[in-house]
């Protein structure tokens, strides 16, 4: 088991290193000078003023150092939790910008992932049980997983937000409010959260339901199921065992799908202008804010790594085979 974790940790470590390096590398080898375009947006009248500011900011962002030094500084700063200063919301430190957005993304992602996973698996297992359910409900599942996140989001926004006008389609809470611990405010938060959550949830739900349905069908052909059936075990027990074993690949699947789900959340946030990381990424892209883009990217990578680790731990808990040290899961 420790080997298993050791190996996983090594991979996470390496992944992190690679991510950081890619992250550092890309903007530096791309065409264009971030400071120049920043100043270009600044719309300053006099060319002389621009020149002075260019020198100033180039120095401020450390673009005048040799590359290896920039790389070393990047790591040094990173290890101190310093991701630089955002260009887009100058002079806010990138970490601050991200920390403000993270609760929204987590508030969207965590429930969406967990609930869709739990509900999808239950539903999939349930649907696999009955032929008519299987034949009617699963096409819906296929359609849901095949739906691009943003399209579902657009449809929901259009249908429920614009046509029906029952739910707000932008922001995280009413523009008429300031954060406080009042019911009214919490209600507003929930109201704004509902649509983005629903679009994430539905797509993921369809995927899990189908995955589970397929797994259960495979599991029901397994030897131990045949054995239980030969001994006349109740259908409930058989289902329960099959479910429990089928859930293992679904856990691994969760790890595999994390990246996709995160991506989905990003796109959904964009549709609903939900002030989370996805929104930040879009803005960072639109504003060529390297530091913010790097920061969000790193943050997401770290988040995904942590989530993966949690999943690994969960896997070890539910699958005795990993604990016994028989080797690697999935």
């Amino acid at each position, binding site marked *: 088991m420790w080997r298993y974790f050791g190996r996983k940790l090594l*991979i996470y470590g*390496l*992944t992190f290193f*690679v*991510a950081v390096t*890619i992250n550092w590398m*890309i903007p530096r080898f*791309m065409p264009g000078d971030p400071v120049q375009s920043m100043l270009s947006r600044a719309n300053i009248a006099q060319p002389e003023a621009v020149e002075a500011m260019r020198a100033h900011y180039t120095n401020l962002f450390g673009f005048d150092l040799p590359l290896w030094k920039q790389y070393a500084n990047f790591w040094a700063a990173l290890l101190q939790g310093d991701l630089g200063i955002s260009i887009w919301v100058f002079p806010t430190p990138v970490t601050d910008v991200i920390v403000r957005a993270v609760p929204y993304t987590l508030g969207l992602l965590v429930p969406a992932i967990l609930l869709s996973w739990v509900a999808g698996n239950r539903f999939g297992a349930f649907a696999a049980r009955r032929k008519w359910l299987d034949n009617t409900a699963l*096409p819906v599942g*296929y*359609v849901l*997983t*095949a*739906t*691009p*996140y*943003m*399209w*579902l989001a*657009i*449809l929901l*926004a*259009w249908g429920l937000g*614009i046509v029906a006008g029952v739910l707000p389609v932008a922001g995280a809470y009413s523009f008429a409010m300031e954060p406080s611990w009042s019911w009214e405010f919490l209600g507003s938060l929930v109201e704004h959260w509902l649509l983005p959550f629903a679009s994430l949830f539905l797509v993921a739900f369809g*995927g899990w339901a*189908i*995955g589970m349905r*397929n*797994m259960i*069908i*495979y599991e029901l*052909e397994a030897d131990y199921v045949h054995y239980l059936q030969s001994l006349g075990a109740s259908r409930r027990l058989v289902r329960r065992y099959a479910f429990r074993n089928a859930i293992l*690949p*679904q856990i*691994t*699947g969760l790890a*595999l*799908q*994390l*990246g*996709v789900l*995160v*991506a989905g959340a*990003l*796109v959904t946030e*964009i*549709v609903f202008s939900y002030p989370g990381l996805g929104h930040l*990424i*879009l803005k*960072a*892209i*639109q504003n060529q804010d390297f530091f913010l*883009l790097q920061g969000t*990217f790193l943050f*997401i*990578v770290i988040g*995904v*790594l942590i989530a*993966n680790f949690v999943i690994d731990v969960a896997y070890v808990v539910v699958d005795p085979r990993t604990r016994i040290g028989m080797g690697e899961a*999935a």
Partner: protein
Amino acid sequence: MTAAGPAAVVTVRAPRREALYFALRNGKLVAGLVVVLVFLLAALLVPLTIDYGPNDYVGPAASAPSGEYWFGTTTFGQDVFAQFAYGLRATFLVGLLGGGLAAVIGMAVGFTAGYRGGLVDEILNMITNIVLVLPALVVLLIVNAYLGVRSVGVQALFIGLTSWPWAARAIRAQTFSLRSRDFVDLARLSGVRTPKIIVREIAPNMSSYLFMTFILLFGGSILIAASLDFIGLGPTQGVSLGLMLNNAARWSALHLGMWWWFIPPGAGITAIVGALYVMNVGLDEVFNPKLREM
């Protein structure tokens, strides 16, 4: 979704005829195939019947679907149907190229790692795991944001380069189990070289599995491309379904009630990818005797 089914080596014990028999009787497979083919034909043929470009301002602005413009027109007076048909082309292309590239990389890595084993496997596995853990779309966002994407081809290239890991992993596992099969040893005893063994002995044994992997990668590429297009990181030339969605959103089609602008592209993507997934399950049932319904 990639978690389509456990990695059972689907051995084609049955002759092809039998597989074909089940294929034709499998409603899921047939229905999926029909949908995909209809869209494919539309993508191939419809543009031939339209004598203007998808981005030309041909009609009255923002008009609802009519006999003349089946899917209506955009704010600029572009024919949504023409855009849809051309967009389908781009969508199929990105699926084919992106999914194909990912499949090729996935196979190369998976076969090599699975067959070679040892250190090669360790290293490839490590790389696979790293790429797997990195959230692909986010990497794509970064790369696209910096490099800029001109064409569907480049987009497909990026997608292909990042979406192979799960395929590699699955193929590796399959290869691993096939590698120890006696017929592989027998081929070695016949003096056949490693690459040839992989191509001639191992790959044919998992051809249906490889095909299913490709289908999933194909669908995945389409979805990723649509997301990228939507964020505005899509190709800057031409049309694609994702770009149509992006444009519809950017030009306030939602608020202006121009549903005909944003419904078709999304529905098209959903239908194609959904049909691919359904096909995949159908294939699974065809090739896996355990799942066949009598």
